[in-house]
Structures are given as C-alpha cells and as structure tokens.
C-alpha cells in the first residue's frame, strides 16, 4: 500500500466557504480501502460537514485508533493535524489533547472493534467525562484488516461469510452512550449522506461528547445475505425517527415546518439544530424515553436512526473541572510557578 497524494486542481466553479476554501481543500490522500466501502462515504460526509462549518483546517484535530475506520483521517483534511494512535485508545489521546487545547475541534473516527471490543473501556470513560468531541463509529460488525472476524457489535444470528452465526449479545454503542450520560447521541447510515452530514455538523458544534454511530457496511467481509450489517439489510430495516437540519449562527430558520414537527435546539456557539420528528411520539430530550423506544425497536429488528438524544445544557469536561478558558498549552511556563520566593515559603513547611 502506498500513500498517494491527490492532485490539487480546483475547478473555478467549485463552491467556496467563508474561508475561501473548497471541499478539495478538506480532502486528504486517496483512500486505500476496498471499493464500495461504507467508510469512504463517511469520509465524504465529514469533508462536507467541516467545509460547511467553515472550520479552519489547522483548528481541526483528527484522532483515531487502529483498523479500517481509523485509517480514514488520512483521507480527509490533509491540512489538519492527525493522530493515528494505538488500537482502542483514541479516547484517551483525545482526552489529553483536549485538556491541552480546548480551542480545537476534535473529530475522532473509530470502528466497532476499536471502540466496542478492545477499546470499550476508554470509550465509556470518555462519555462519562463528557469530553468535548465528535466521536464517529464506523460500525460494520466485523474486523476488516484481519479478515472478517466478528466484532462486539455483531447482532445475534448475523451470519459470517464462513462459519456459524454469532450467538453473543451485541454491544450497542447508542444505548451504551445513553446509559452513560452522553449529551449528543445519533445514529445514521453511510448510504444516507443527506441525514449523515447534518448529524456530523451538529456533533462537531455540540459542546460535550457527541456520538455518531454510522452503520457502514464492509463490502468484503460483511455484505452478504444473512448479515445484519449489509447494505441491503440496513436499507430494509432502516428507520428514521428524528432528522436534523443544522442552521449556522446568525442565520434565520427559513424552512417551513408543520406545527409540532420541528423542535429547535440552540447550541452554545449560537447555531441551531432543528430536529424534525418523523415519529411524533419520539422525544429526543428524554433519555429514559429514548432508551425505551430504542430497545423496543431493536427487539423488532429495526435500526433506529437520526438525532436520538440531545442535552445541550450538560457541561463539558473542562467546565466540570473548572479550567481556564485559554488553552493550557499556550500558558507561559515561567508564570506557572511561584518562583524563588514562593519556593522559600513552601519549604518552610518542611523544616
């Protein structure tokens, strides 16, 4: 596998964002994933989202662990710093990075093996700390790079290409996140860019831990009949409950919504998420109701998608800790200690 740079030729008609950048400026190197991989669609959705949000490339930090999903930060935003860490440990690295510099926007890309098997410990602790990041799981139920073993998100009865169907309970990242107090929980499908892009935008702008679980089929090892993470299965059982429109700060909500259908949620940065309920009974602000609904639909074999839960009031990790607004990494080291006189005073306690 080589590292292929994309030619940087921009057609003059390409749309530019407020920074004067085109989507090409948010691309990375050529993907080395299999043709048709769901992950490449997620990459395209991320590029669209960060372009639309006018994120300065150097203010974006791309974090990942190990696996097919974790390679993808190389395929977008080449003008942003990336940190491809070790297997299952992206959350801890992102936690430290975020503590050092709270001004960056953190996007973590992980997989179901990376987050739910080897890395489940770090995944759950990042959630309970309400770490301010957008956490995307490219969820396909299998290990790709090691050739098709089930991951912890494989459904009971899902058939592998060879061998026996899975018999173990799956770990559902969405209900896991809900139970741990996550403040933004979404699920989508790599094949539904219209739904996915606004969900990623909302996650990037949300203050706190934002999970976007994306069913992203593995064309090589888990797209056959009998798999519950295939394109065909996902399309058949896919169920929108709450879709999302992202409205940037200072922009009017122009689309017309029927009464009761739309619910605006204003974020800390002044932007607004307009939640469009497809199922009128669903309440995305009630953790308990969301949990119950998801469980019922799960038992019926449905894949519930959309912005499933939001709480924009819960304080993110820095605010819970009472940290200064300035990035800790920018503080002048010489100002962080009480000097010679202070040392004298401290040592008086030890004589």
């Amino acid at each position: 596998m080589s590292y292929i740079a994309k030619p940087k030729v921009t057609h003059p008609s390409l749309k530019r964002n407020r920074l004067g950048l085109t989507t090409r400026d948010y691309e990375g190197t050529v993907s080395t994933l299999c043709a048709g991989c769901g992950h490449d669609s997620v990459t395209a959705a991320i590029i669209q989202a960060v372009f639309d949000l006018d994120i300065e490339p150097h203010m974006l930090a791309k974090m990942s662990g190990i696996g097919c999903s974790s390679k993808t930060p190389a395929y977008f935003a080449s003008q942003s710093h990336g940190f491809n860490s070790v297997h299952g440990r992206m959350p801890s690295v992102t936690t430290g990075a975020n503590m050092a510099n709270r001004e960056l926007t953190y996007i973590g890309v992980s997989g179901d093996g990376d987050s739910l098997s080897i890395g489940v410990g770090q995944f759950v602790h990042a959630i309970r700390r309400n770490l301010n990041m957008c956490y995307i799981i490219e969820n396909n139920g299998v290990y790709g790079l090691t050739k098709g073993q089930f991951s912890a998100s494989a459904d009971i009865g899902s058939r592998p290409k060879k061998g026996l169907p899975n018999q173990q309970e799956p770990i559902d990242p969405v209900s896991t996140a809900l139970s741990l107090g996550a403040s933004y929980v979404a699920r989508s499908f790599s094949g539904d860019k219209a739904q996915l892009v606004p969900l990623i935008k909302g996650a990037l702008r949300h203050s706190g831990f934002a999970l976007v679980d994306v069913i992203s089929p593995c064309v090589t090892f888990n797209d056959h009949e009998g798999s519950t993470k295939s394109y065909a299965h996902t399309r058949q059982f896919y169920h929108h409950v709450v879709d999302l429109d992202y409205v940037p700060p200072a922009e009017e909500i122009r689309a017309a919504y029927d009464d009761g259908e739309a619910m605006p949620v204003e974020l800390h940065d002044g932007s607004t998420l307009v939640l469009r309920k497809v199922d009128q009974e669903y309440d995305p602000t009630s953790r308990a109701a969301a949990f119950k609904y998801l469980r019922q639909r799960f038992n019926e074999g449905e894949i519930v998608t959309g912005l499933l839960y939001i709480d924009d009031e819960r304080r993110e990790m820095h605010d819970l800790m009472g940290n200064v607004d300035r990035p800790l990494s920018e503080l002048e080291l010489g100002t962080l200690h009480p000097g010679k006189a202070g040392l004298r005073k401290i040592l008086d306690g030890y004589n």
Partner: protein
Amino acid sequence: MAANNDIVIKIATVNGTGSASANGLLRKAIFRMGVPVVGKNYFPSNIQGLPTWYEIRVTGDGYQSRSNRVDIMVAMNAQTYQRDMAEVAPGGLLIYDATWPRPDLLDREDIQVVGIPLSRLCNENFDGVRARILMKNIAYVGALAAFLDLELDIITGLLTETFGDKQHMIDANMQAIRLGHDYAVEHFECPLSYKVEPMDRADGHIVIDGNTAAGLGCLYAGATVGAWYPITPSTSLMDAFRSFCNEYRVDPETGKRTYAIIQAEDELAAIGMVLGAAWNGARAFTPTSGPGISLMSEFLGFAYYAEIPSVVFNVQRTGPSTGMPTRTQQSDIIACAYASHGDTKHVLLFPADPAECFYTAVEAFDLAERLQTPVFVMSDLDIGMNDWMVPEFEWDESYVHARGKVLGKEELDSIEKFYRYLDVDGDGIPYRTLPGVDPKGAYFTRGSGHTRHGAYTEDSAAYQDVVDRLLVKWETARSMVPEPEIEYSKFNKAAILTVGSGAAACREALDRLAADNVGLNYCRVKAFPFSDRVREFLAQHEVVYVVEQNRDAQLRTLLILDADGDPRKLVPLLHYNGMPINAGFVVDAVRKELTKGRAA
C-alpha cells in the same frame, strides 16, 4: 552500639491507629534540635489492622540510608512483640505499654525493658475512645523525650504550628507528652547513657519525601496536564502536585484552574492522555509504578516511534507481578529502558533522594521536549515515601524552560514545506509543530511505518532510514543526560558503582570501608543512556562492584549493553528483599568479595 546522636528508634504500631502524627512529631523535634534524621516507614498493603513500623535514625554524621540496627524499640503492637524484642541491639531499650501483662518468657537479659502504662494513663486523663488511642501515641513521644533529653519547648512549638489557634488541641497533646515524660522521669533513669544533643547540622536543610518533591518539581516545570491511575507507592506524587496546584494554579479572581489532573480509568488511558496533551504542546506527565509500566508499554513504544515528549515517574516497588506493593526495589530498570515491543529504548533518569526528585522532575520535562521522546524518572518507594533530610531546594530565577525544536507560525512561514521527521540539524532530532498554529504545519502522527517526510510507508529503505535516525538521536541523548557522580577517593582499580537510592548506603559504606583501610572509587550513574564518562570509569577499573536493588543485576546488564561493560569485571552486589538497602549490607558484601579475591 548507640552513642549521642547516633541512635535508631523504631516504633511498632498497628496500622490505622494514628501513630503517624506522633512519629512525625518525634522526628521533627529531633530535627529542630539541629540533628540530622532519617524517617522510614515500613507499612503494610492495608488500611487498618496489620503491623506497621516507623524507624527514625538519628545520625549526627548525616547519613541518609537506613541503619540495620535498632537501639530503642517502642513495642506498641502485641502481635509483633516477640520479633520486635528480638530486633533490639544488645544494650538497647524496649518500651512497652505496661497497662496489660506481658509474657515474661520473652525477656532478654542484654537489653533494658521498660514498661509504661500508656493506655491506663491516657484512659484516666482523656475522654473518648479515639482521643485515648491517639494520645497514647503522643504519650510515648513524651517518654522518649525524657529518655533522649529532647527539648519540650521545641515539642510545644511544633504542636502550636500544627494546631494553630486550637488551643485545646495543643493543651491536650502537651498533657499527653507530660504524662509519658513524667512517668519516665519518675520511674527510670533519664536520660539514657546516650541522648540527642543539640547541633547545627540541620541548618539549611528540610525533611521531605521524594514524591512531594517530585510533585513540586512538576509545578516548577510548568506541567499542566497530569494523568494517572492510583497505585502505591506513586499516589502521593499526584496528591502533592494537586495540593501545590490548589495553592498556586488557581486564578484568585475567576477561581479557574491552569492545570488539569485526570484520574484515568487505567494506566493505558493515563499514558494515552499524556501523549495527547504533549502532542498538543502541554507539559504532561504520569506517575506510576511497575504494574502501570507494564500496562503503558504499547503506548510507550508509540511515543518513542512517533517522537512525543512525555514524562513518566516510576516510583518502583517490589515485583514481579503485584509483588509487595509497600516494599521498595529497583527492579523496573530493564522494563523501562526497553519498554514496548520492537526496537525501542528510552531515556531514564535516576534521582537518589528527594532533592534530586525536585531537580530531576524539572530536567525530565526539558529533556523530553528537547529529545521529543518519553523520559522516565526512576524513583522508588524508599525515596518516594520516606522522609529524607536534604539541602533546601534552590530555584534559579534566570532559568528558562527548554521547549526543544518547535516551529511557530513565523518559522513555518519562512520555510517552503514542513516535514515532521526530517533530520535538519544532523543530531537526529527533527522539528515538530503544534496543532492550532498553521495549516502548513499539519502532519499525521502515526505508530505505523513512516518516512522521513511523515508519510505512511511499507518501503524497507524508507522505514530503516527513520529507525536509524532514531539511533542518531539516542547518541544525542547520551550527550544531553546528566553526568554521573564520580569520586576517586583513593585510586586502586576497584570501585563501587550504584544508582538511585543505593547512593546513601554506598556513601556510608565507603566511609566505613575507608576507616578500615579499604579504599574504593565511586560512581553513581544518573541516567541511561550512559554518558562517555561512565564508559571511561568502567574501563579504568579492574573490578567494579555494581550495587543495586533487584535480583537480576539489571543495571549491570545495561552497563554491559550500553557502556561496553566487561561482564568479568562487573561484580553484582544485589539487595532485593524489599527493605531499603543499608550500608552494612554493602560493607559485608564488598568484604566477602575481597576475601574471595584473596583466596583466588
């Protein structure tokens, strides 16, 4: 035998009975009389109920290591009474609580056994179970004050410092002191034939433990992110850092903090947080001990290969596995030197006492940033958790923290293109950039194979190019790390070489051997990789006794691997029972080797 200002007092109590403050009071009272003291805690991995000991060595000569002798035993624990009595040196004193009968069978003719009804005295004078238990401890301090001729005014002063305006606490404690003191004076000959005599050898010194000193070093180093998972014996390092930060890192107006301490879910996460923070430009560290190092291993290799400055404090304890968590050893030397799979090696710094913990902490952050690699501060339980008398720390106001090769926006503007792993200066250390500065500085940090330009690779030559450059950096590290401490007292081709907390015992042993006309040269290594001076020192000698606190002669192995040490010349003298090494052990071991040499 004990003599004036050469006395070892050992106090045997039950864990959780509040004896620590009484023992601290005693140690401080002696120190305030200007007499050097060492305080060692031998405690169980337990919160309440198991035996625990505190040993105070009164050492007019200022020796820092543990003595292997006990002159006065305060035997407050019936559970260990028999072994405590057996430990007292001939001519010594044993004090026990005479409230309850004591088995006469255990008597020894060669020591003085003194019964003081401490519990009864306190039960008669204090109300409440807790107060009675605590005051019983204070009362034995009073008795010792009588036997050792300690100045009661100093004790009153210390109590006033501790309790401030809580006059009733000062009064109650002084009452307990007097109960013990007066009973001893009335019933026994006080002071003993040896006592504590005021001196001025404690001037300019403090008594502090290494973890507190290292935590203070982190404050002065400007560390802003500390991530950790609690583990004995390193926990008090983060506790100390936190308490200094509470004092000096909170904005008085906003109440906001200029530090982030994260209690991680495990050590894997702790080091991951350190790497994320350091990658992003903060000074970040984690304190841990052996089991934590094992868990951090994968990330440590990542940090070596992706070149992320990071600081790990390893307060070593007794291994293998869980081992004896509250006992000391230097048994992680190889585990840290080569932590992680693949060809990895790491810079280790070895402080020998709490003063060096302070300075080494500051230096470790500088070295980590200059070298862009993990740096380990290899302390141990003996240094980290015991009370050492050391010279007061100095802070040089002109000191500027070394941030290493970091390109800012202006520098990025002035170059055509930035490549993360290019050896521009020929010292093996590339330039790095921080996120959030400029898109031109963007690069992809990875633990997978990469080229000098930072791109992914599976190309043999491009891969090898980078790992070979890391060897150039290793040689640069060799020239940057602290030089060894070397002394040629009497050049005779034989020497003692030691590391870390072995220094105190070796120093004392050298004096004792010299008094016996055995002159040995001395080298204490302060860092790995070994500087050229260590290599020269080994080459100069026909025999080098390598004194270290582990079973497998780990330092000796490194000397062979990294400093051309000749295995035939390097004689291991190994102390690894979990107790701090003492001078007597070194003297005996050296003598034994010398006898062997003569026989051959």
